[in-house]
């Protein structure tokens, strides 16, 4: 799965947690989940659990700590999907 596809699917994971649908549609790898999408920090673990389910992967807590912006989320999901890359 390439980064563009992961980004596209990540929007579905993030959608329940942000009111700013316009910003969500325009996210890029620099988008910050809390500062830009105004996602409440209390939902960050929900997003990680939803991403695990969406991509059928397991994200350990060391990796989870880095999932504060879209680019890092894609890095971690991509590593888990393609462990030899």
């Amino acid at each position: 799965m390439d980064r563009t596809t992961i980004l596209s699917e990540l929007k579905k994971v993030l959608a329940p947690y942000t009111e700013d649908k316009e910003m969500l549609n325009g996210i890029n790898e620099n988008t910050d989940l809390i500062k830009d999408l105004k996602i409440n920090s209390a939902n960050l673990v929900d997003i990680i659990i939803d991403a695990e389910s969406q991509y059928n992967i397991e994200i350990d807590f060391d990796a989870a700590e880095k999932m504060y912006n879209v680019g890092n989320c894609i890095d971690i999901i991509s590593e888990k999907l393609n462990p030899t890359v």
Partner: protein
Amino acid sequence: MKSTGNDIIALNAIDIQRTNTPAFYSKIITAAEQALYREPEVSALPFPVFVWLLWSVKESVYKYLKRADAGLIFPPTKITIQNITAPRKAPVAGLTNSVWESDRIEEDFYAGEVKFNAHLLYFRSKIDAEFIATAVSPVPGFENVYWGVKKIDNPGQENQSRQAREFVLQKLKLFLLTDDLSIDKTPAGCPIVLKGNEQLTIPVSLSHHDHFVAYSFLLAR
């Protein structure tokens, strides 16, 4: 370092079923912290409330430390709660006119010590039927730390942010005896207090979750 940190959790907005799953809580709390739940005075709390209590402490510590370390990333399992004591007296239930503030009434809290690397901080948490509110302090007596909670009608993100700012400004104006106060944020997202265009050296922390907003600040009087 002169700082402050707080957090608010609206208990009706948490997913109880999900919180009870190891896949969820093991991303927030360590095995040593899970062992704290076996202590009698803590195990009286429902487990999801215990998990979110620890989350609110960790988030408060993160906000406290981020003021001096703008690049800090929230590391929930590396901020570790060392111990927890329950209130000796039953806490005051509910809010008065939708508000609770630490300086209005003497009461006991869930309290303890929390570490991150070389930092040792102290936390106090008020657990109500509807919310968990936490503040942290570098001293166990919480001298000069003010913190408060307000219930709001509209949980929209813009309203939450506006109400949190208005809530803390209302309090600060009482102490500083001026209406010319406003809140801005540093590029890292830490709130700062302005008097006119002048930045005051009063560290402020703001939080919101669903129908609740909360503040903490440090002010020597």
